[in-house]
């Protein structure tokens, strides 16, 4: 078992190191083979480990890292069902994305760098997933952040990409700081950093501590999972290559925050306030992402905002005391969003790099029929149309909120349902614009879609299958809830609150209806025969608001970035140079001035010298006389 886990982690690590050290001299073919093999091997190990572990949590010390006094940071792996699910998910999607990348990136230079980061990313992600020690987790946490940074900025020559990368790194690092602080608090409270220990002894924490840690964990998750108010980096992160967006910014890394909340759920759940805040943040983020997605022009940005929205849903589920539901939605989102991104990648490649949905249209559908099919499945799943996996997972989250005793969650339920409607609307807006868009003002210069390599499309199939039929892993009917049961041994994770079957079915049908209404609205507005052609060139203020993601970037610029820079300039010019340093140099200058004055006394004239001599003698007498008196 231990060796399985070791290999699980080592494969991608060695793959990454292999590229890092030998990268430049490496043949592209070898590079690709190694990269894909590393991840595939990892996938096999993940599955094997899951099978061997058989649903029991197992903790293995892998390596000593460091330990001083009570602080022991050993690289311990915990392979419980939660970790197993995540590990399989991560390696599975990573394997597909690696495969996809082989074709997708075949014309790009810097392949060694690309695969190096991608492999390392998988490694770090697996570290997060399998870590028991919080610091080990932190290693992965920061590692994925760095890889994400490097991959977003993969096309570093364009300043826009580099800036997006920096933004992503910085904002997620704010979350990291929160996580670090939380780790510090854990350490002070438990003198231990083992999550296993912490989750089993969470009751020891005082109420204030629980609240603080809960909020900090939420902040950490907000950074990584792009929740409000730290969501701003994710849309910009789309500057990276599309497979990267699929893997990191849709399926895996962004879910790390959610995973963290799940892992430490037993702590989080102790604080009702923190739970409430979590749920609220989730709901608002979901709504925010969905609304913003409505007005985007860039296919990837639509998906990115959609990811923000879906992450909000997951957190909403956790906040509503249904962590398993959150995980379920995490899985389903991973499938359909990865699918959508990869499909979008096919489209973009076919259109030689075109991202603007207003420049796509019918021709795409004709050129890429298989992609069209896959995209449709993904869109349906995202829009939560039964019987896709998306339907089941989202339905469960909404139901949980409704059945929650607190009235507060009913409000959240309303927001959630509204978001479901908007979700269906924007995803089908996207769908119709991309595949059915007729000739418009911008479409005149639209590039001709070309064919894509079939391998690209093949990688979509498994995802499409899962997005469509993955729901069976946790059907809310009878004992079909495999996932729930599988996760039972994990601390804190259990089945959702029981609701009466009628309510259950009512909500279920209602949700399906809402989704279909949304699709209908989208059809009316953007379908093959829209009610009116939207003039995309003259956006009104509402559209601007949505397009810019509620001006969040501007707000940050105005209230955070600019004051920060101003403070920097002030400190640098006024305080450091004009204040602290001026004191130092000023004292030197003062000494010089004194020096000049003293030298003026040395007039070179004997009369001065003799006069001062006499004065000195007199002064001496005065001092002595004073001493006598």
């Amino acid at each position, binding site marked *: 078992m231990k060796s399985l886990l070791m290999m699980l982690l080592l494969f991608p690590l060695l793959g990454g190191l292999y590229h890092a050290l030998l990268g430049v001299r490496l043949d592209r073919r070898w590079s690709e083979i190694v990269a894909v093999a590393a991840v595939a091997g990892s996938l096999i190990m993940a599955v094997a480990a899951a099978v061997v572990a058989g649903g029991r949590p197992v903790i293995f010390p892998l390596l000593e890292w460091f330990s001083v006094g009570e602080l022991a940071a050993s690289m311990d792996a915990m392979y419980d069902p939660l970790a197993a699910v995540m590990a399989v998910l991560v390696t599975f999607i990573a394997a597909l994305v690696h495969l996809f990348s082989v074709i997708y990136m075949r014309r790009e230079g810097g392949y060694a760098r690309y695969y190096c980061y991608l492999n390392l990313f998988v490694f770090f992600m697996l570290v997060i997933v399998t870590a028991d020690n919080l610091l080990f987790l932190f290693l992965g946490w920061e590692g994925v952040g760095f890889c994400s940074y490097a991959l977003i900025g993969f096309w570093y020559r364009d300043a826009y990409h580099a800036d997006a990368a920096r933004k992503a790194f910085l904002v997620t690092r704010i979350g990291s700081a929160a996580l670090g602080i939380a780790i510090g608090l854990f350490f002070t409270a438990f003198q231990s950093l083992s999550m296993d220990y912490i989750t089993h002894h969470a009751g020891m924490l005082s109420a204030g501590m629980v609240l603080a840690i809960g909020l900090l964990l939420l902040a950490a998750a907000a950074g990584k999972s792009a929740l409000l108010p730290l969501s701003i980096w994710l849309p910009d992160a789309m500057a990276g290559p599309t497979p990267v967006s699929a893997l990191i910014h849709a399926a895996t890394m962004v879910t790390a925050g959610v995973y963290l909340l799940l892992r430490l759920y037993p702590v989080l759940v102790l604080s009702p306030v923190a739970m409430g805040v979590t749920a609220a943040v989730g709901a608002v983020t979901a709504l925010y992402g969905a609304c913003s997605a409505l007005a985007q022009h860039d296919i990837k940005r639509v998906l990115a905002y959609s990811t923000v929205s879906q992450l909000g849903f997951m957190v909403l589920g956790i906040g509503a005391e249904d962590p398993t539901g959150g995980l379920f939605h995490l899985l389903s989102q991973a499938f359909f969003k990865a699918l959508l991104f990869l499909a979008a990648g096919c489209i973009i490649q076919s259109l030689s790099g075109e991202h603007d949905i207003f420049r796509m249209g019918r021709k795409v559908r004709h050129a890429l029929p298989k992609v069209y099919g896959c995209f449709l499945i993904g869109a349906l799943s995202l829009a939560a149309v039964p019987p896709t996996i998306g339907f089941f997972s989202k339905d469960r989250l909404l139901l949980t909120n409704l059945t929650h005793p607190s009235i507060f969650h009913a409000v959240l339920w309303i927001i959630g349902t509204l978001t479901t409607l908007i979700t269906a609307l924007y995803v089908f807006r996207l769908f119709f614009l991309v595949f059915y868009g007729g000739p418009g003002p911008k479409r005149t210069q639209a590039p001709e879609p070309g064919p894509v390599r079939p391998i690209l499309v093949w990688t979509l199939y498994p995802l499409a299958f899962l997005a469509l039929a993955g729901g069976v892993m946790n059907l809310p009917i009878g004992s079909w809830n495999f996932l729930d049961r599988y996760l039972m041994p994990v601390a804190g994770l259990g089945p959702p609150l029981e609701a009466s079957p009628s309510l259950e079915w009512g909500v279920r049908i209602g949700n399906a209806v809402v989704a279909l209404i949304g699709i209908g609205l989208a059809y009316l507005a953007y379908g093959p025969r829209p009610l009116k052609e939207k003039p995309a060139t003259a956006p009104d203020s509402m559209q601007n608001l949505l397009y810019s993601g509620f001006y969040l970037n501007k707000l940050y610029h105005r209230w955070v970035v600019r004051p920060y820079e101003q403070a920097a300039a002030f400190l640098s010019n006024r305080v450091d140079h004009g204040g602290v340093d001026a004191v130092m140099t000023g004292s030197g200058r003062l000494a010089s001035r004194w020096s000049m004055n003293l030298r003026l006394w040395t007039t070179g004239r004997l*009369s001065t010298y*003799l*006069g001062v001599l*006499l*004065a000195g*003698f*007199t002064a001496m*007498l*005065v001092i*002595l*006389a004073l001493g006598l008196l």
Partner: protein
Amino acid sequence: MTLYTGIFYLLGVITLTATAMAVTRRNLVHAALWLVVSFFGTSLLFYLLGAPFLAALEVIIFAGAIMILFLFIIMTLREEAAPRSFREVWRRWRLPSILGLISLVLIGFFILSAASSYHRLMPAMAAPIDFGRFLVTDYWLPVEIVSFLLFVALVGVLYLGRATDELEEEESLPSVEEEA
């Protein structure tokens, strides 16, 4: 109050007056001459205080040799005393005189607060013979030293005098250096 006392104060007044005149004269020759008077007064005071040999030496060396030297140099330099305004004189004198006055008060305080200041001096006389014997028995070493000192001074004077001569030669014969 004895005769000696009277003589002492008389001599004191003479000496002080002469010194005061000497230090304030604009004309250097006058100053030197007043100083000679002051030295004579001191010489008599020496005599009064029991040092006849020193009184003689005072006249010979101070009033005689040194002041003659002064006069000689004054003559040689032919320094002309330019009349100066009172304001300028005051500007020069004010600080030293104030300091001098303060010092005087303090010195007076220090002197007069010491017990021995009220010890009355009785007339006595050191015979020159005794004095001479004392000098060469107890103080033969300083005598040797001062002879060296005077020797060095002599050498110095010679050297500087020669330098002055060279200076004058150079002035008269500006091309000497090149030839040398």
